């Protein structure tokens, strides 16, 4: 990868470009906040940010440090509470949600709970938080992941947040909302999607500049589907980098 930008910056830009104007997006702490800020400035000025503890439609003048912090409802159209927000998602009003995790499997299931057995765990992770709710209730989810074989695993140690569960029809059988599910993984190496309507397994769609398909395959712990045409993602533009570094995260908290 070029030295003009870091892998994290590439990932933030790739995530920002996924956000569509005129949609609602459930935003969690970290990278999604930076991506949403960038998207609002460049690609999706009317993106409606929705924060777990009550902020809807805030103007993200400054980077929030916490999902309930005052910056998540700065000049918002509504400041309510977690129930209203989660019920809004449950009612089908939230188009996108962003997720992260320690592990992801071919069906987009995520683990943020434990490494190893549940009890006692080898490594105790933070838990579901709003992750399971986002994965259950938003229409489409985008996972943001560091790309290596310890994280892209055939089977997650603990299925915290639902992707397509055990594959075709899995979500519907479990009672999750029909027509919902993961659509995208933005990793540190590539953009991936899913074979929706078919096997529902993860598929490599595009690589970052300087990354090869083989590198992605090597760093993935399960058999990846490969798109007929794997494209190369545009590198971050100067404007994207300037906004990220000077306006969005000038203190360098995340980048």
């Amino acid at each position, binding site marked *: 990868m070029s030295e003009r930008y870091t892998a994290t910056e590439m990932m933030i830009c790739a995530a920002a470009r996924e956000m569509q104007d005129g949609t609602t997006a459930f935003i969690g*702490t*970290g990278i999604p906040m930076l991506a949403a800020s960038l998207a609002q400035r460049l690609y999706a000025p009317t993106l409606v940010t929705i924060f777990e503890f009550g902020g809807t439609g805030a103007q993200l003048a400054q980077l929030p*440090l916490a999902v*309930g912090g005052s910056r998540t409802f700065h000049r918002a159209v509504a400041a309510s509470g977690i129930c209203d927000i989660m019920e809004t998602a*449950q009612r089908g009003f939230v188009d996108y949600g962003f997720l992260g995790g320690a592990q992801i499997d071919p069906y987009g299931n995520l683990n943020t709970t434990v490494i190893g057995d549940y009890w006692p765990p080898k490594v105790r992770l*933070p838990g579901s938080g*709003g992750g399971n709710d986002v994965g*259950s209730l938003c229409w489409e989810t985008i996972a943001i992941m560091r790309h290596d074989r310890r994280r892209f695993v055939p089977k997650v140690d603990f299925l*915290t947040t639902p992707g397509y569960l055990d594959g075709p029809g899995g979500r519907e059988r479990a009672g999750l*909302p029909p027509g919902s599910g993961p659509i995208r993984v933005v990793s540190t190496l590539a953009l991936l999607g899913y074979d929706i309507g078919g096997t529902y397994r993860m598929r490599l769609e595009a690589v970052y500049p300087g990354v090869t398909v083989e590198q992605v395959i090597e760093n993935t712990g399960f058999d990846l589907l490969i798109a007929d045409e794997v494209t190369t993602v545009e590198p971050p533009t100067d404007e994207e980098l300037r906004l990220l570094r000077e306006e969005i995260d000038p203190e360098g908290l995340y980048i």
Partner: protein
Amino acid sequence: MPVLEEGQGELFQPPDMDAFREWNRRKKSRRMEDKLMTEREAVERFVHENSYIGTELYGTVRCPMSLAREVVRQRERIKNLRVAGQGVLELDLWLAADMVRTLDLTYIGLEVYGISHALRRAVESGRTRTAEWSNAGITWRMKAAAMGVPFLPTTSMLGTDTLRYSAAKVIEDPFTGRPVCLLPALILDVGMIHVHRADRYGNAQIEGISGFAFELARASKRLIVSAEEIVDSEDIRRQPDRTIIPYYLVDAVVHAPFGSYPGEMPYTYWRDEDEIRAWVEASKTAEGAETYLKRTIFDVPDHAALLEMIGTERLEALRALASQR
């Protein structure tokens, strides 16, 4: 309509709504009584060994941190807490102080600063037992109790290990035939909430997002409210549509300016990043955490003394950085 699936997690607090009704009838006064007291008194009177407790909102935002610290200060008396948990600093302090025996866990972490070391030590050692829930799941459990019903349905948590290690149940919805997850009501022995203003009877109002204050207040058998400002009841009665917690829910009112410190209080003061980072560093080891607890809690008699230690200058600087409407 059989039960299709049952979570195997432990139900730390049973959803006995009849008993909760009876409690609310017998133990909660309807009179406007003066409930103003100190953190110490409030915690002494209402938080006990084995109590099931919870706080609102979140360790770094409008969280009753002066109460959370007082709970630690009374560690010798209060042991084996049971806790409802999504948290940052508040639960981290309790975990680091080794006071938490069981945990209905949704998320404990340090947000921008990563995973919680105190949580890892407590759970990986087996000292703290856990059951899993989603953030919405645990809040809806409080909402069930707040509504006075034994459970609430949801389409969240279905199909996952989160449900499998919870105490939720899945049934077939008798109206649509689809599987639906039932979350058992969560009744807290003690709830703690920090607000912008309250009168001495406990009528309380909040500015900005309300998090889950509404639900937690109504799901608690005992409720301790700390407030930035104690106001005259007339101020409450002038805008009753802003009251989120009516007095009869409240057992103790604590005047706690900078009560959310080192977290932020919307429109009032910003968070103290240096102090938060100090905890992140200190909590990496058990010894470091204990030293931090000694310096900021055990060696400090009360919240006022802590504020004095922090110093007016630093606090006023945080006030100057408060978010604007």
